[in-house]
C-alpha cells in the first residue's frame, strides 16, 4: 500500500506545482512511505457502515443576500502583484490550454 516510488512523488510534485529537486524527491519518497505506513491504520476502522464527516459542526443552507459588498479597488488589488499592466495581472506565457 505504502510502496511509494520516486516516480509517483515526481508526479505528485507536478500536480502540486512544486519543482522539487532530485534530492528532495529521494528524501520525500522515503518519508512519504513512512508517513503512509503510520497513517494506514485509519483504513482498518473506516468500515462501510461509518459515514464520513467533513464539517465538525453540522450546519446547512448558509447563504448571503445578493447584495454588492467588500469590493476592493483595482490599485489595491494590483499593489501586491509581482507584475501588472496597470489594470490586469501579468503572467508569463502559458504552456497549457484553457480548462
Amino acid at each position: 500500500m505504502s510502496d511509494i516510488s520516486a516516480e509517483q512523488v515526481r508526479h505528485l510534485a507536478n500536480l502540486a506545482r512544486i519543482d522539487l529537486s532530485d534530492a528532495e524527491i529521494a528524501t520525500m519518497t522515503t518519508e512519504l512511505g513512512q508517513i503512509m505506513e503510520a497513517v494506514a491504520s485509519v483504513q482498518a476502522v473506516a468500515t462501510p457502515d461509518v459515514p464520513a464527516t467533513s464539517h465538525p459542526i453540522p450546519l446547512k443552507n448558509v447563504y448571503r443576500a445578493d447584495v454588492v459588498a467588500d469590493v476592493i479597488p483595482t490599485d489595491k488589488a494590483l499593489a501586491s502583484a509581482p507584475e501588472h499592466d496597470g489594470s490586469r495581472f501579468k503572467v508569463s506565457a502559458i504552456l497549457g490550454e484553457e480548462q
Partner: protein
Amino acid sequence: MAKAKLMDYDKALELFEPVLGFEVHVELSTKTKMFSAAPNNFGSEPNTNITPTCLGLPGSLPVVNEEAVRYSISLGLALGCEIAESSSFARKNYFYPDLAKNYQISQFDEPIAINGNVEVELPNGRIVQVDIERAHMEEDAGKLTHVGGSTGRIQGAEYSLVDYNRAGVPLVEIVTRMIEGAEHDAPELAKAYVATIRDIVIALGISDAKMERGNLRCDANVSLRPRGSDKLGTRTETKNVNSLRSVERAVRYEIQRQAQILADGGTIIQETRHWHEDTGATSAGRPKSDADDYRYFPEPDLLPVVPDPALIEELRAALPEKPADRRRRLKADWGFTDLEFQDVVNSGLLSEITETVAAGATPQAARKWWTGEIARLANAAEGDEGIDISPAQVAELQQLVDEGTLTDRLARQVLEAVAAGEGSPREIVEAQGLAVVSDDGALIAAIDEALSAQPDVLEKIKDGKVQAAGAVIGAVMKAMQGKADAARVRELVLERAAAL
C-alpha cells in the same frame, strides 16, 4: 488551421452512428457572484468587480449567494430534474492563472439537480427527448488575454494578462446523458438543444444567455459507433463553441473528421478539441491524462444546500411555460402552416410575434412584418447597431394600414423611419405627411387631369379595355406622390372614364 481530411457527411452516416453529449454552462444574471459579494457585471473595466474572495487572497472565504441557489433550483425544475434533498460543494483542484485559488468550487458527487429531460424540436419538425444527467452549481474563472505572437491565441504569446472580473460569476453546468438516435440530424439537434436551453433560461429570466458574451457556452461530445456494432467509440470534447451555428458546424465537422480517421483505419484519441470559428475546423487540445486528476474533495468552507420543500414548490409554481409547450400552443393559436411556423421559430421571432399580436395585430400580419420587411432591414443593418423596432410599433403600423391611412408601400417607408429612430409610426406619418390621400375630390381632380392628358387611354378604357387604366393610375399615384390608395384610385378612374 489546416482542415483535417473529412469524409462526406452522408457517407459518414452510412458507416457510423453519431453519439452525442453536451455540457452547457449557463452564467446566471444575479447581481453578485456565486461565492463573493462582488458585482456580476459584464463589460466593466478590468479587475474592478473584485473582492478578496474573487482574487483568492490569503484568508478569504466563500459564502453562497442565495439568489444563485434559487436560480439553479428553478433551472433544474425547468429541465425536468429532481432537486436533490441535500447537495454540496466540492473543490476541483487544478492550477491555471485564471483560477484565483487554483481550485474551482463546484459540485461533484452531490449536484443540486439530477435526472431531467428536455424536449428538443428540430427544424424539420422532429422532436427529440434529451435526457439530462445533472445540473450543478459552480463558479466561472477569470479572463485571460494573450499578448504577443501573431494571432492573440495562447500559442506563441509572449505573456498573458488576467482580469478576475468574471472569476466567481455563478454558473450552472447542465450535463446530458449520452444521446443516441439523432442520426442524420445530429448537427441540427446540437444546435436545437443549445437553443432550447437558451430559450429556457431566457424564459426563466436567470441569464442574459448571450453566447457571444460567453453567458452560454457549449462543450460538445461526439463519438461514432460503427453500424452493426454495439461498442461505443472514443469521444472527443469540442470546446470554444460560441454560437448556435458553430455548435451545428462543430458537430458536423467532428462527425466527418472522425469518420474519415476510422475509415482510414486510424483511432480516435480521447481529447479536448477547440473549435475555430474562422476556419470552421477543430484542432487538438491536450489529451486526457492523469493530469486531469482534479483531487475533488468536499469544500470545507461551505455547508450543504438543503432546500426547503416549500421553496422548491414555490419555484415550481412560478416556472414559465416550457418552450416546447409554448410553441405548440402558439402554433395552434395563430393558425400558421407548418412552414410558416418553422420559419418563425428558426428566425427566433416567437416572442416578437407574440408581443405584436398582444398589441393588437393579427398573427399573420405580425408574421409578415417580422419575417419580411423587418428581417430585410435587420439584414441590411447587420454589422452596425442592428435595428430597434418594438412589437408595439409594428402593431401600430399595421393598424394604420388596416384603417387605410397607409398603403403597404407607405407602411414600408414608415417602417424604415421607425428603424432609423424617427419616432412611432403615427408620429412619422404626421411629421412627414405620409398619410394616404383619402379626399376623393383631390383624387378626381388628378384623375381628370391624367385622363385628359392621355385621350388614347381614355378611349381604350371606354372600349372596355380595363387593364389600360394602369397607365392612368400610375400617373395619378405619381401626382399624389404615392400617398393614395391604388385600389381607390382604380375605382375612381373607371368611374370617371365612364362618366367622361
